[in-house]
């Protein structure tokens, strides 16, 4: 059910940002918890003493200037940073109460629960069908269920009508925006709880961008969505909560409405009024 449009709202989309406490925010609980979390690449201290609680079933936007650490923060959540040999972390990062940097954590199961979509659409050089089926196959979903999983996932990414007759075609035959929705479908296919999106629209045109943005809204009904973006309007349009990062620190975190209308930190204010970025 859609919320009534509030006249004082700054935002053009067909929804309103709520302050913490009412509406969607009240129904959600903390699912991702950073506390005293640090990250280094070699000697480069990229994330500094991060403490942040990201709530379930809403869109949380992380914004900030280039190099502020927002992507590194996102890539800590599914531990894809582990692929970088010089990467070290300290502090605690909990997902659903589980310390995901504990040595006995199964990182492959973690990544099944925490899907990720990248900046540039990166479908595999396979058919549309096989792209979506890749994750379920890895995790042992039997082939007889695959058709259903693939269809549901592509429907979930609002792509079904466009590709239902061409599932065996090469994924590269799709447009950039379709490829990105295919990557979202691919992430949905392993049935995650959390979806991380790392500037998912930065390589897309405005029409494709608006499709992905409304898809993010839909996804937050069912999933926890964490969006990294350098596009302020995008953060304002799609998120319930917004974090502002600067030089590896979270400078401000609150409801999107508060952060945009009444920023507490001078840096945040300068950033959203366009004085730097």
């Amino acid at each position, binding site marked *: 059910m859609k919320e009534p449009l509030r006249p004082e709202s700054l935002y053009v989309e067909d929804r309103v940002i709520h302050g913490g406490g009412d509406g969607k925010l009240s129904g959600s609980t903390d699912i991702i918890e950073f506390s005293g979390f640090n990250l280094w690449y070699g000697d480069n201290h990229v994330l500094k003493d991060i403490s942040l609680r990201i709530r379930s079933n809403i869109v949380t936007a992380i914004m900030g200037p280039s190099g502020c650490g927002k992507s590194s923060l996102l890539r800590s959540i*599914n531990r*894809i940073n582990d*692929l970088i*040999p010089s990467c070290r972390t300290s502090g605690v990062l909990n997902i659903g109460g589980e310390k995901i940097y504990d040595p006995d954590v199964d990182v*492959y*199961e*973690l*990544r*099944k629960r925490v*899907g*990720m979509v*990248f900046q*540039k659409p*990166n*479908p*595999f*050089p396979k058919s549309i069908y096989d792209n979506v089926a*890749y*994750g379920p196959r*890895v*995790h042992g979903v039997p082939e007889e269920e695959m058709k259903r999983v693939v269809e549901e996932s592509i429907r979930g990414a609002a792509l079904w009508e466009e590709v239902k007759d061409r599932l065996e075609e090469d994924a590269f035959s799709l447009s950039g925006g379709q490829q990105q929705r295919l*990557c979202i479908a*691919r*992430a949905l296919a*392993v049935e995650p709880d959390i979806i991380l999106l790392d500037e998912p629209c930065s390589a897309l045109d405005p029409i494709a961008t608006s499709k992905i943005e409304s898809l993010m809204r839909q996804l937050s009904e069912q999933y926890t969505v964490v969006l990294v973006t350098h596009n302020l309007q995008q953060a304002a349009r799609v998120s319930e909560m917004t974090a502002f990062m600067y030089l590896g620190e979270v400078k401000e975190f609150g409801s999107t409405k508060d952060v945009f209308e009444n920023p507490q930190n001078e840096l945040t204010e300068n950033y959203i009024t366009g004085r730097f970025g």
Partner: protein
Amino acid sequence: MLKTGARKSGGRALMGRLVYVLALLSVAISLLSLVVILGDALADGLPYLTWRFVTSFPSRFPTRAGILPALIGSVWLVLLTALFSFPLGVGAAIYLEEYAPKNRVTEFIQVNIANLAGVPSIVYGLLGLGLFVDALALGRSVLAGALTMTLLILPVIIMASREALRSVPKLYREGAFALGATRWEVTRQIVLPEALPGILTGTIISLSRAIGEAAPMIAIAALVYVTFVPLSPLDRFTVLPIQIYNWVNLPRAEFRNLAAAGIILLLAVLVAMNSVAIAIRYRHQRKAV
């Protein structure tokens, strides 16, 4: 102002033309020498390149001499070498590229593999003689020859395969890891299929080098007059380059014609193998567009 500028650019233009002429000259010299060699071999050898020549054994009489044992020996050698060198080379490349930590030890291994590719082939021949023929008691067999050739071309296969693996975009790997795939699943299902054309091209070109090598096989096989076809990997053998070398050294002029015919045959085999490599690469490029 304009005048000095014009003079300056005149000098630069001259330099440009000079480089163009030198580059053209380099191409001309390489092509010309190839044409001379080929022309010479074709003129001497073509009349002798008959079906009888391909299917006969060597003989004291040039009119009866053929190249069959050397041809079969070379086929044996290249097949066995492929069997050993492909999995070893690709395995080593996968380890170095996908698994090995990026540290000094890995770097040291990498530098040494590159160095090994530059070691003269006769050194490999002597190593093979000591290791496979004597120490492992394989004798002067096709097997010992193939193992020696494997050592010889392994560095090149490893380097070509690493290059092919490295050219697979990081985005594919990250995409698969993000879905919860393990390192091996990512390598086998995503990286290897993409790298395979490059790996195959490198392997085939290495194998065609192996088929043309004489020096290490002289150390291993040392047979110049073979009147039988090797039927198992433990049989003795000879190869095309040795047979050709042998004929060139015989006093009668007709044997030099036979050598030329052998060279044509060897070149034909090489061209055929390289064509396969080019075809694989071409097909892949077309697919990627």
